[in-house]
């Protein structure tokens, strides 16, 4: 059985309830989800998320397909925003529906780990003192993704 895959790349916010409701309606016994939110602190006023518009949708599709190969999933939803986002705003939704919780939970963890290292997005941080900096890729993110290679 192939999973129903939903990918969205958009500036606008998404409706978490509606998105999870869509997965619930597929008829499995489990829906798991991860929501990434802009973290405040250290004077951060905004994030600018840049992406490769021609490539992003396909890259997220491949992340979802990889999850579908590894777990018996009924549905997968990946939504990633771009543009200017402020602390407290949602960045990303990764969610999976399956017959049982283990597949849904593990696949959700995989989806966000894999997305962080396999999708063409870049974050720039803006601070209250007027400074700005590109976020550096973290070795911890590579390690989190590579644990799924075994």
């Amino acid at each position, binding site marked *: 059985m192939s999973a129903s895959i939903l990918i969205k790349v958009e500036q606008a916010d998404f409706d978490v309830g509606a998105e999870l409701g869509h997965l619930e309606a597929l008829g499995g016994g489990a829906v798991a989800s991860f929501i990434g939110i802009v973290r405040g602190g250290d004077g951060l006023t905004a994030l600018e998320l*840049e*992406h*490769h518009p021609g490539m992003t949708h396909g*890259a997220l599709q491949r992340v979802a397909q990889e999850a579908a190969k590894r777990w018996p999933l009924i549905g997968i939803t990946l939504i*990633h925003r771009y543009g200017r986002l402020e602390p407290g705003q949602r960045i990303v939704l990764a969610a999976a529906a399956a017959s049982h919780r283990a597949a849904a939970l593990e696949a959700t963890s995989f989806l966000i780990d894999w997305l962080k290292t396999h999708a063409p*997005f870049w*974050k720039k941080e803006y601070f209250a003192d007027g400074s700005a900096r590109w976020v550096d890729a973290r070795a911890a993110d590579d390690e989190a993704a590579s644990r799924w290679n075994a």
Partner: protein
Amino acid sequence: MAVELLYFARIREAIGLGSERVDLPSGVATVSDVIDWLVSRGPAYAEAFADRTRLRVAVDQQFAPLETAIAGAGEIALFPPVTGG
């Protein structure tokens, strides 16, 4: 060979361009060769590509290593390691 080059994030800022169409000289066979050729074009390119350990590539919208052959490619994107999610 004509190809569309795309630059993102700090690479885009260092070069001052998001994209450009270039005519590559013969002998430019891999992504690494493209970067060598770009670096020869001026200091902004040299700065953008100073640290190749922090450079990532997509050829025709698929992630690819620097050694990738570019024959027939229509688009080469050059960017830092990704930081989404």
